[in-house]
């Protein structure tokens, strides 16, 4: 089988700092509103108020940093009307902006919000795995940026051999939609898909 690049993310280490997001924006000159890597905040639990003015709670919260997962069954690709979206020989899903009509159909289809509309140019844009850099032995910008070393990258099978095969956790969608090339070490408080809430919808 051909190579499939993938990201690895250890949710236990993530402080939600978004250095990954900004490093990516700086490298690719992304405007506000175009964010190739985003950090979702998960929230769950509730408070109980007692008669003596004290409280108890069972709050949990954690972060999940996510870019394009260069999925095995990318929803964006078959739906794109222009063939602007392709999956290359190393499994990297790319958008050819010179073909894109900006219909934003891929944005509807992708459950990770990976395709991001660049309003200035009227085209969709997306994480390209820093493919050129990686091809030359370099590291994707987000991975090199992570202050807590929560992000890694590599070939999917190798990452799976090292870290297991978990590729879904709340507040991400079920992996069944797109079969993402993503390996996650879930947070110690991790909750299954569909539980809790996305606590920072305005940020992702």
């Amino acid at each position: 089988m051909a190579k499939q690049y993938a990201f690895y993310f250890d949710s236990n280490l993530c402080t939600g700092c978004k250095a990954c997001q900004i490093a990516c924006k700086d490298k690719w000159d992304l405007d506000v509103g175009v964010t190739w890597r985003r950090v979702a905040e998960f929230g769950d639990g509730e408070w109980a108020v007692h008669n003596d003015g004290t409280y108890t709670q069972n709050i949990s919260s954690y972060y999940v940093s996510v870019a394009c997962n260069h999925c095995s069954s990318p929803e964006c690709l078959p739906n794109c009307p222009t063939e602007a979206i392709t999956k290359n020989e190393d499994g990297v899903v790319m958008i050819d902006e010179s073909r894109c009509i900006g219909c934003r159909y891929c944005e509807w289809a992708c459950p990770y919000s990976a395709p991001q509309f660049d309003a200035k140019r009227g085209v969709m844009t997306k994480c390209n795995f820093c493919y050129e850099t990686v091809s030359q032995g370099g590291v994707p910008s987000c991975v090199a940026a992570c202050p807590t070393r929560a992000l890694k990258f590599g070939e999917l099978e190798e990452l799976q051999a090292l870290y297991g095969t978990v590729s879904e956790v709340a507040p991400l969608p079920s992996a069944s939609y797109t079969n993402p090339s993503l390996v996650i070490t879930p947070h110690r408080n991790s909750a299954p898909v569909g539980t809790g809430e996305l606590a920072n919808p305005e940020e992702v």
Partner: protein
Amino acid sequence: MFSEWPLIVFTIVMQLAVGSFVILGGIHFFAARRYGSKEADKLSDYALLAIGPAVALGIILSLLHLGNPMNAPYAIAHFGTSWLSREIILSLAFSGIGAVFALLQWRKIGSSTLRNALALIGAAVGLVLVYAISMVYQIATVPAWNTPLTTVSFFITAFLLGSLAIGAALVINYWNLRRKSADQGNTQYTMLATTLKWIALISVVLLGMQFIVIPLYLAALATNPTNAASDSLDVLFSEYGLLFVLRLVLIFLGAGVFAVFLYRMASSNGSVRVLGNLAVIAFTLVLVSEVLGRFLFYASMVRVGI
């Protein structure tokens, strides 16, 4: 901010156009069999010509939805897998065939067999187009859309709007004919009244279907396990609850109450003025309801995941 107005207009216009084309074809077919093609042409030609500009408007507006319309030609490239590509190709095909047919029909070029064949092909392409439009929205990640009920309701929209539009157009056409020459004879009026009765019947039946589809749809959404589905329900019931009720009321009035009136007036040889008012009001009410419905359709779009 809501930004899907071009899509609302495009999808409704295309569905209306297909619905009108098919209904009009049917009317023409039956009318011609009974009264001869000349009378039938007189009944329907102007209505046919009204469809053209609507389709052109729809297609042009759809371009407004694009971030980069300069690349629009690429949009037909991926017909192998992309329903959006197919929708675009079918839209172009339908409007192309429709335009050629209209031209031939208007100028009476070619044999009527040829024209009828063309009309049949156009109608078939149109029906596939409505299907394609509905498939564009059946993406796995949007529970509010990803149901065969989307297809059913798009066809209901097509025939409901199409039939009522044709009803209104025929009355206006007859009005025009009579203004030019007071004596139109009984044939035209009889054809009109019969047609309107059928249109009223069709719309009541479609309304009934709609009132089956909507509860089914809501039930499906309510039992869908994803957060996205419940968020969509929230949009329909909380955020836009009033609009949702308004849409139901309007469609009930238009396709139900006014259609029944139309039927009764057409049965009892009502005046053209009354028939015209009823047909136009019924169409307008349903059109507004369908626009609201389509607005809610897009507004309730909540994707799974983040």
